[in-house]
């Protein structure tokens, strides 16, 4: 199961709009995607689960995907995070 490590650079962390965009992006893919922060793992397509991760600015997250479009999904999420969720 492919996985990537990412650091959240956005000021508000994986909350508010960044969390929404993250979840919306994940939801575009059919693969099962999960995101881990510390000890907690969440369904990347669930806003409620992603929020409970409490991933603040500078948090390191691990994203795993499994399914037909797993690689594309990881690539899209990586770009989103590296691009600071489209905010500059």
């Amino acid at each position, binding site marked *: 199961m492919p996985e990537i490590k990412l650091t959240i650079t956005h000021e*508000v962390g994986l*909350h*508010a*709009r960044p*969390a*929404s965009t993250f*979840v*919306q992006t994940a939801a575009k893919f059919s693969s099962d995607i999960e995101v881990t922060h510390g000890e907690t793992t969440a*369904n990347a*397509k*669930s*806003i*409620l*689960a992603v*929020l*409970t991760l*409490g991933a603040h600015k500078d948090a390191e997250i691990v994203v795993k995907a499994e399914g037909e479009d797993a690689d594309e999904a990881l690539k899209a999420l990586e770009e989103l995070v590296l691009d600071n969720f489209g905010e500059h």
Partner: protein
Amino acid sequence: MKSISGIPASYGIAIGPAFVFTRVEIVIEPCNIQDPKAEWKRFVQAQEETSKQLDVAYLKAQEELGEEEAGIFEAQKLMLQDPELINTVKSRVDSELINVETALYESAESFALQLEAIEDEYLSARALDIRDVSSRLLRNLLGLKNSPADGLKIPSIITAQDLTPSDTVMLNKDLVLGFCIEVGGSTSHTAILARGLGIPAVVGAGEPLRKIKTGDKLVIDGDAGEIIIDADKKSLKQFRDRQKKFLMAQADAEAISHQPAITTDGHQVEVVANIGSVDDVQPAILSGAEGVGLLRSEFLYLERSSLPTEEEQYESYKTIGDAFGDRPVILRSLDVGGDKDIPYIDMPPEANPFLGVRAIRLCLSRPDIFKPQLRAALRAGYGNNLKLMFPMVATVEDVVKIREVLEECKQELRDEGYDVAEEMEIGIMIEIPSAAILADQLTEVVDFFSIGTNDLSQYALAADRTNAQVAPMASGFQPAVFRLIKMVIDAAHAKGKWVGLCGEMAGELLAIPILLGLGLDEFSMNPPAVPFAKRLIRSISMEHARQVAETAINLKGDKEIRKYVQEAVPEVNRG
């Protein structure tokens, strides 16, 4: 024809049908079901309906409140479609054969509790969001209207037991002719809102109001505090005549509204506006206000889920400060607590919130709230005439503490290379009797005073202004209150400082001659009152006002003072 009396809260006459604003409680009855498929179909339908409503809310918020606020509804929509939530609900319906309302309520509540358990203000506010989405869904499942405000389709007079700020924000203001409220006094939320909108209101009308049904023909007389149901032809004609006269007097006053407020014997005072948002700037300027005597900063903190940033505050304060150029704009620091609550600021319940950690007391204990506001103000005041004022100051020590934080902020900003309003004038509100009594000491540490009569009266008379039974005592028309005001003005003038008044009283025509006579320098009121106040001040002499004030402070109480001013100064009668 029947009539109900209450407390007059906002001038004018309104004639129109009643709209009864009632909140519906959600009651969920757990029960077992036979057909989980049918149950699930109900859920999917309600979910679609909710989704559409959230789209509408998103657009409305985007238009009225901006992109950031609209984002809340976008996040709520994601919650509505959340796979974890939906799967939990579905599996409970399927396996336990319970009704979908119970499954939904319990699942959403469990997520809300998880979010709340994480010590984070932002996430606690999301707990409110999930509860909000879930109750919207439940209302749709149960066939309840989403907001009682949705039913308002034609211009109507709103009647209600009480209205909260979140209720009134939902009302289409273009369709509101007036307000009749069961509870509250003349300084309650709805009363202030009505005066801000320039429409009549009667509050504290009590239980008889419950007899009114939507569609009943109403007249409200905002001058007398009367509500008339099914007025007969003759009195309806009289009300229409008075309404016409009122509108004419208004036009008359507006004609002189941009002239200075000078008495017939040449004494000039300032007439300025109380405003509560960037949107209020234009109406204030158009009303003839010569600046802003009270800019309530709460607007930046309400209707959102986290504290406004320094940058956001800076933008708003700067826009408002610059709009008035070299005319003064007095920004009041955050005034919450008491009857004003902000969900994302953790304020533990208090037995006596009005005597508790409110306003400056809260700010001094929370530098994370206070400092961004001070920094934003100090930056925004560069190049205009923004002043800062602090509510609920009780002692000189309070001011010393405020000044320390203020200096700290100034130093930080200088170090960071910002332009800082170094000479910004600093004032305090006089609303606690101890501050009035200590006015001579306080003149040493501030540049100006602004008297908040709403609170000063309730504290001086120990009468809760939100309690209709004692609210008349807290009206401000009390010799004790006028004497406190006199003490403050005399103490300030002795040291060459000026005094303003930004309570509701500043715009009350019956109070103006007394306040003028006591030597008040600045009258700050809701924009619709500005033309009437200027017209009155321009029609009387300072000499006469001084005599009126001297007599009034020696009278016995509210009724006596009102009656006396009415007779001694006939100019107070409009029209």
